């Protein structure tokens, strides 16, 4: 028996960096695997059970491998707007936004979240990209802008419909936050930065905590009856069901925000009129006329998952697209996938033929998300 779709899980060696919660995960039975240069827990009791637990209760994810950056300095908003398409200047104190670090040609270098703090912008970037991102920011931001890599902080995500009850008991007041808003909170004398956001499609929070306090906070959270620790495996299936693309799989330098169906990332009228973000000419033409290819969701017939790398074929059997993420969806109870297909095939209801390891599968383009979002929005 051997792994057919992924490289065998490499041995955990000393080359892998250890996260602040490494011993905490191992003590709770987390199966550690290499990811983004770190030893990370892929699962505890099992991906299916953990996934369903998050959809009904609350799960604690350790996402400390992600890069936490703090940018500050004179002229920061305008300087950052030269690298990302978001309306940075329009983000008020404690407001949070999703955006994309763009290459000169409009391809995506990384996706990120940023928040306005009192004295600068706090940014979370992907773990696998963080060193490249820091180098890119340093190269392209003026010298007056300071970039502080907050590597002495852990990042925890508490996700699920009961996250607000559980976290509210540990850190009173978090229920006042709404989706994509954050704030500073005090927990037993430790300063926490908490935002109501995440990457599972559920209500939930992300919590930046000093690394030396991370285990104590994780203990306090998992002491709540609604909360179990959840591994990366379920994080992947949850985000796939929620139409949340994963950098390096569904997004890369070959894809633009419009191809990736992230039109909301270029929603600011001012930024579009100024057209001064990287790749603006190409991205705005694609936004107007439609891209050549587009990211879509697929439901695959039968029970066999179709995974990253499977081909999308036209009626003559020619390759016209590619699956970028796929697996069995625990909530949907069917195999689902994200794929890039020609725009003419991107309408929901379009039948598609897929090829994986010499076997043909059939599927249908469907509207995403596969599972409705349950964010707690302002005014809702």
């Amino acid at each position, binding site marked *: *028996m051997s792994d057919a779709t992924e490289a065998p899980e490499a041995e955990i060696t000393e080359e892998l960096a250890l996260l602040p919660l490494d011993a905490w995960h191992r003590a709770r039975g987390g199966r550690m695997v290499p990811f983004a240069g770190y030893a990370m827990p*892929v699962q505890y009791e099992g991906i*299916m059970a953990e996934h369903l637990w998050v959809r009904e209760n609350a799960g604690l994810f350790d996402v400390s491998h992600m890069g936490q950056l703090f940018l500050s300095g004179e002229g920061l908003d305008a300087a950052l707007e030269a690298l990302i398409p978001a309306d940075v200047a329009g983000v008020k104190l404690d407001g949070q936004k999703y955006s994309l670090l763009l290459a000169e040609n409009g391809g995506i270098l990384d996706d990120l979240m940023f928040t306005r703090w009192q004295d600068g912008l706090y940014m979370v970037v992907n773990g696998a990209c963080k060193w490249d991102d820091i180098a890119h920011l340093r190269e392209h931001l003026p010298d007056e802008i300071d970039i502080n890599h907050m590597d002495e902080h852990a990042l925890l995500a508490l996700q699920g419909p009961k996250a607000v009850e559980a976290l509210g008991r540990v850190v009173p007041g978090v229920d006042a936050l709404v989706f994509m808003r954050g704030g500073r909170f005090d927990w037993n004398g430790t300063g926490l930065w908490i935002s109501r956001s995440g990457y599972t499609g559920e209500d939930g929070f992300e919590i930046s905590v000093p690394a030396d306090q991370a285990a104590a906070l994780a203990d306090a959270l998992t002491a709540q009856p609604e909360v179990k620790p959840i591994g990366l495996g379920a994080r*992947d299936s949850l985000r796939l069901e929620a139409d949340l693309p994963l950098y390096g799989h569904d997004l890369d330098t070959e894809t633009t925000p419009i191809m990736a169906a992230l039109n909301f990332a270029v929603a600011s009228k001012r930024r579009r009129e100024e057209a001064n973000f990287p790749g603006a000419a190409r991205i705005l033409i694609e936004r107007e006329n439609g891209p050549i290819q587009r990211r879509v969701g697929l439901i695959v017939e039968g*029970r*066999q998952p179709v995974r990253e790398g499977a081909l999308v074929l036209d009626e003559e059997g020619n390759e016209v697209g590619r699956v970028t993420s796929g697996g069995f969806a625990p909530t949907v109870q069917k195999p689902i996938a994200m794929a890039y297909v020609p725009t003419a095939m991107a309408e929901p209801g379009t039948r598609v033929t897929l090829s994986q*390891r010499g076997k043909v599968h059939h599927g249908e383009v469907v509207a995403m998300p596969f599972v409705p979002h349950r964010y707690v929005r302002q005014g809702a």
Partner: protein
Amino acid sequence: MSRYFTEDHEWIELDGDVATVGITDYAQGQLGDIVFVEVPEEGKQVGKGDDAAVVESVKAASDVYAPVSGTVIEGNPALEENPALVNEDPEGEGWFFKMSLSDTSELDGLMDEAKYADFVSKL
């Protein structure tokens, strides 16, 4: 009846001329939740070490190899409806396929239950 094991975590049990093949409890534990099993069709000829079946967990697909050479007699039809049988009873009801052997001497190179237990304990 005797049961043999491979280093790739397949088991094979010989009963007269017919052998039953599956994956071990250790293997299902490593794979996690199994959501699909593709079993070989009746009549398929397999050589020792050939891909004979595919088992898919939530996370990944894995090949299952033929422990010895021979001809497939039947795939386990129960796995189509209930692939989780492999998690629940990997070395019993969750078998993958039955085969006839073309060279029983190939079994000599496999591990017995005690040797396999020792092999797994060192992983």
